[in-house]
Structures are given as structure tokens and as C-alpha cells.
């Protein structure tokens, strides 16, 4: 009989929780509910939680008066005539099916005005399909799959530069190196996780490499969460390409770098898609071993200091207390999307999805948290002002090396070999 009382107690506990949190939804009336849908648990939880923290920082900026910040929506408290943003948080665990049903719940049950999410492109796809069918807004900060904005959706807007844009930038940079520095880079190796994200990135990289006549000599997808990467790195080493494009998240990234160190091999240049490379926590633990790798980024504290001073203030005042680290280029973009949505609502003058959608689709927004300083969306929802730069890491500092306009340091080329550091 004890079994039943135990089960019953658990059930009561759960139900209490349900009512408690369900109940919290009532109350204050002048609120704009915005759904957030990120992987708060599961394999990509690190990034998901950073994204959520970044949104919380943006909410703080919008909801309270911060005249000291020189950015739209900061000076006044709230939106319209005193509306506050309230985030309704949901967790999709990195699973597309959960993302889909949580998106439905947010729109239909919680009556959110829009959803911001979902980090993993594979989760963003079905979740934004829900939005499109229901004619609700879906805003996406960091998902990088180019396919997302090739669907011709009307209610979908995405800030991040796509894999396609980044790949072209990488190959541009290689051409530039070949021309200016006589780098002699002829062959390319691809090292990517065999997932939705990695595969997309690799496909775009292949296209871009073909454009500039780079020969792909190693095409090495690996299993996410692998126990070791020795055969992968051995394959790269045997093919010995001049350049490597990498797409590996957190744990896999550090394992990759360490394994290359073990076999004492490096390409002349290694450029990463938005991945473990740009996670400050990962770089901190790699320490000096992480040096001289490169990556596409749209945010770094160093860039921010020069081009986005407001972002640094937001970071120090509101983000760091929550996340205990600086922004990274994924998380900051979620905050940008909320700021843009806020501006669009303000311009529409009312909580009218259609009006806000039209404004989003047609106007150009001032965005002090974006590298380019502004945001505008093409049909399909891609941010045409999306910009990323190539950085090279040195002693946990992201030096910007390309394009010329943003450059703050000279590239160290080729990467210093392991035994000469």
C-alpha cells in the first residue's frame, strides 16, 4: 500500500506545480506575452540557456526605463502606453516534435503574441511551420540553416547570417589570403558533425569552395557526442588539406582541438562556423591550445567595444549576472530579435499581428546590438543586413581579422604548429 501513497504524493506534488505555474499566467493585464522556445535541457542546453538569458536581458532593457542606454526602447519603460513584455518560456529539449507541440501550446494556450526561438534549425523548422499556418509571428535569432528562409514564409524572420553567407565569406577570405599574403591555399578539408546543422554547413561550404576553385580533399563528418575523434583527425591528417572548415559544438570542438594536438597536426588555417569556437566557456578551458583557430562571428566583446558599445553595457549590466559570461554571437541575436519586435510593435501602435508583420517585412530597423547597426528583412525572412566577421582567437581574445572594415589585428598565418608555441 505504501506504493500507492508514494505515487499519490508525487501526483499531488506534480498537480500542485501545474496549478501554481498555470495560475501565474493570470494577473497583470497590460502585458505582451512573448513565447521563448529553446533547448533548455538535452545536448544543446548550454546554448539554449544562454539564448534565454539574453532575452531576459533584453526584456529588462525594454520593460524598465534606462535613459543611460543609447538604444531604441531603452529610455521608456515598457512598450506602447505602458505595456510590459512577459516571456513565456518553453523547452524543446532539442527535439523537433517537442518544439512543434510546444509552439502550438504557446500560441493557442498561452496566447503569446510571437515566439522567439529555437536555436536548433531542426526544431525551428516545424515550430515555425506551426506559426506560418496559424498566421502568427515567429522570430529566430541564431538558427543558421539557409533552408529556413528559402521556404517563402511570410511570418518568419531570422537575424543570423546563414551558412551560405558564412561559407562565402570564408572562401572570400581564403582568396584574399592567397592574393594578399601569397598563402597558397589550394585544398580544403571539411570537418563537421553529422547533424542537421553540420550537414547544412558542409553543403554550403562545398558550393562556395567550388566557386573559388578550392579542391576538397577531405570530407569528414563525425558522430555527435563521439567517444573519440581519433579516426576523424587521422583522416584529416592523412589528407593534409591547407585549410579546414569546422562545424563542431562544445564538447566535440574541444575534443577535436585536443586530438589534433595529440597527433601533432594542424592545417595552415582552420575556420569554424558558429560553434564551440565562439563559446567563451569552451575557449576558457582550452586555454592556449585554442589559439590561432578562426571562426565566423557576429559578436565578440572586442568587436562590441568598437562597434556596439551599447551591447557591452547590456552585457555587463543585465546578461552577465544571469549567464556569468559575455554574450556570444548566438545568444546576442535572440536579444536583437526581441528589440526589433518591440520596435515594430511600437511603430504599429497596436498589438496587431498583421500590422507588425508588415512593418517587420518592409522597414529597416536601428539595432545597436547588431554588428551592422541595422536590420532589414528580405521576403522569406532573411536579415539582409546580417554581417559576420572572421576572428582569430589568441589567448581567449577574439581578434577581428577580416573584412578590412572591421579589422583590428593582423592575421597570424599559418597557424603556429603545436611544437612551436
Amino acid at each position, binding site marked *: 500500500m505504501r506504493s500507492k501513497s508514494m505515487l499519490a504524493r508525487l501526483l499531488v506534488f506534480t498537480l500542485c506545480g501545474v496549478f501554481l505555474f498555470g495560475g501565474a499566467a493570470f494577473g497583470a493585464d497590460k502585458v505582451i506575452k512573448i513565447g521563448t522556445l529553446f533547448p533548455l*535541457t*538535452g*545536448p544543446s*542546453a*548550454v546554448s539554449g*540557456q544562454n539564448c534565454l538569458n539574453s532575452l531576459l536581458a533584453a526584456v529588462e532593457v525594454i520593460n524598465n526605463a534606462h535613459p543611460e542606454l543609447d538604444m531604441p526602447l531603452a529610455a521608456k519603460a515598457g512598450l506602447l502606453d505602458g505595456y510590459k513584455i512577459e516571456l513565456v518560456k518553453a523547452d524543446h529539449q532539442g527535439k523537433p516534435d517537442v518544439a512543434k507541440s510546444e509552439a502550438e501550446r504557446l500560441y493557442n494556450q498561452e496566447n503569446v503574441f510571437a515566439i522567439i526561438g529555437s536555436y536548433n534549425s531542426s526544431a525551428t523548422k516545424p515550430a515555425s511551420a506551426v506559426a506560418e499556418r496559424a498566421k502568427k509571428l515567429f522570430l529566430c535569432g541564431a538558427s543558421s540553416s539557409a533552408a529556413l528562409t528559402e521556404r517563402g514564409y511570410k511570418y518568419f524572420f531570422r537575424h543570423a547570417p546563414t551558412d551560405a553567407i558564412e561559407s562565402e565569406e570564408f572562401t572570400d577570405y581564403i582568396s584574399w589570403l592567397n592574393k594578399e599574403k601569397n598563402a597558397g591555399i589550394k585544398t580544403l578539408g571539411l570537418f563537421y558533425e*553529422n547533424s542537421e546543422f553540420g550537414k547544412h554547413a558542409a553543403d554550403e561550404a562545398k558550393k562556395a569552395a567550388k566557386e573559388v576553385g578550392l579542391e576538397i580533399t577531405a570530407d*569528414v*563528418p*563525425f*558522430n555527435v*557526442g*563521439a*567517444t*573519440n575523434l*581519433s*579516426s*576523424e583527425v*587521422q*583522416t584529416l591528417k*592523412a589528407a593534409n588539406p591547407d585549410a579546414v572548415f569546422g562545424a563542431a559544438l*562544445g*564538447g566535440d570542438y*574541444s*575534443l577535436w582541438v*585536443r586530438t589534433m*594536438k*595529440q*597527433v*601533432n597536426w594542424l592545417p595552415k588555417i582552420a575556420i569554424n562556423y558558429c560553434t*564551440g569556437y565562439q*563559446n567563451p*566557456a*569552451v575557449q576558457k*578551458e*582550452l*586555454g592556449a*591550445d585554442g589559439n590561432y583557430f578562426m571562426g565566423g562571428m557576429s559578436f565578440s566583446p572586442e568587436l562590441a567595444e568598437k562597434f556596439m558599445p551599447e551591447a557591452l553595457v547590456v552585457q555587463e549590466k543585465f546578461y552577465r549576472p544571469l549567464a556569468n559570461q559575455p554574450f556570444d554571437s548566438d545568444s546576442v541575436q535572440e536579444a536583437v530579435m526581441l528589440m526589433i519586435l518591440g520596435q515594430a510593435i511600437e511603430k504599429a501602435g497596436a498589438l496587431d499581428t498583421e500590422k507588425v508583420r508588415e512593418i517587420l517585412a518592409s522597414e529597416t530597423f536601428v539595432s545597436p546590438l547588431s554588428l551592422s547597426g541595422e536590420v532589414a528583412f528580405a521576403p522569406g525572412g532573411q536579415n539582409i543586413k546580417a554581417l559576420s566577421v572572421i576572428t582569430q582567437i589568441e589567448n581567449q581574445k577574439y581578434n577581428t581579422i577580416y573584412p578590412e572594415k572591421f579589422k583590428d589585428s593582423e592575421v597570424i598565418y599559418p597557424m603556429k604548429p603545436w611544437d612551436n608555441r
Partner: protein
Amino acid sequence: MGNFLQVLIDGLLNGLLYALVAAGLSLIWGVMDVINFAHGEFLMVAMYLSYWLGFLLDIDPFISWIAGGIFLFLLGAVTYRLIIKNSLGKAAMAPLLATFGLSMLLKNFCMNVFTPNFRLLSGNWLEGRTIAFGGAIVPLPQLVTALFAFAVLGVLYWMLKKTRLGWAIQATAMDKEAAELMGIDTERIYLLVFGMGGACVGIAGSLMTSYLAVYPEVGGLFSLIAFVVVALGGFGSIPGALLAALLIGLVESFSGFYIAAVVKYVAVFAVYLGVILLRPRGLFGW
């Protein structure tokens, strides 16, 4: 030729790591016919322990494995007392599913407490040290871990074959009732076995921290491979587990290099299926 040697060495080192990870599982399975589904999470807990000992107290993984072994012994014993003992023999697969629940609990508990961040211990004694061996490179942390695998498996084997405790364990494994009639406290044996199984994985996890990142999901693939190693080696056979682990490691590295890296686990699981169908009780099964 240089490649071949390197791939061979990688395969052997990985195989020995798998053997170390699987040793505890093999012992538990052999004696109690229980699969501990939370094995990978035990590994993760040990890795966190070793990470924090290294990070906060500056204790190198090559020392903190002692703490890992002791802590996981206790965790194993507690798991036995609270979960296994109460689900054993009640229904088919009940212990397996109960430990599956435990794995969810542990994984999410660690995520809650330690955040999902990847943590990599740096500044270890052997970090980045390698020795050259005929054109191939042997990383020292992995080599030492591999030697530990021999040591742990050797001690287990010796204990089972040569000590009174080992005989009691074997007797319990063969026939629990008969062992009880002989005056063996099988309850205590089970408790010890589960604890020792935990200790083995604790040692493995602690050592791995010297070159692998720790995060809540780290145990997933390791535990699957450990299951395969144990089943391939044959029910509770320590030499079987060692041989199976080496086979798995070699299949992984050779298929990963000579076919394609992305198919290496397909090859591992396919080889396992192939062998197990020819020898339904594993290589050394009885």
C-alpha cells in the same frame, strides 16, 4: 605504413578504455544478470567528481581516481540497496527499467546542479604529453588509462579466481540458493558486487577526465558501447570483455579511417551483431 600503425595504436588505446569502462558492467551482469542502464551516468558522475577535485583542489585525475572509485563504490552500493534489491526478480527487465529511470534522474540532476556546460580540465600532469613510437604518436594520458584497464581487469580477475570473496561471488553467480545453503551471505555479495562495479566505472570516469570534456550527456555512447562489449565478450567473462573491447576499438578505428569516419559506429554495432549471431552467448560465453 605510418597511418596503419597510428590507426592500430588508436584502436588499441580506445579498446582498452572501453574495457575499463565495461569492466564494472561485466561484473554486475555476470553475477546478478542485471544490466545497469545508468552505467553511463555513473561514468559521468565520476567524471564530474574528478573534474571538481581537479578544478577546486588541484588534485590530478591520476590521483583522484581513488576518490572516484570510493565514491562510485558507495553510489553503487546505495543504488543496489534502494533500487536493484527491490526490483530484482520481480518482473522481467524491472531492474533495467528502474536503472533507466535512475539514469534520467542522474543526468538531469547533474544538468541542474552543474549546468549543461562542457567542462574540460586543464593543467594535468600528462596533458599533451606524447611519446613517438615508430612514426606513430602515443598520447600519454590515454596510454596510462589503458594500463589502468589492464590493472583493473587483472585485479578483478585475480579476485574472482583466487580469493575467498571471489569464490563466494562465483558461487552466488552460479546458484544463489545453493550458495545461501553453503552459508554465503548472498545479500552482502550482491551489495559488494554492485559497489565494485561502481568502483570500476568510477576509476574509468576519473581517469578519462584527464583528456575528455565532462557534460551531462557524456555517458550516452560510452554506455552503449559498454553494453555491446559485455554482450560480445560473453556473460560476465572478464577476459571476454577485454578481448571484445579490443575488437570493438580496432573495428572502430580501422573502419573510421579506411572506410569513413561517419560509419565507424555502424561498423562497431554491425560487427557485434555478426559475431553474436554466430556465437549467441558471446565470445567467451557459457
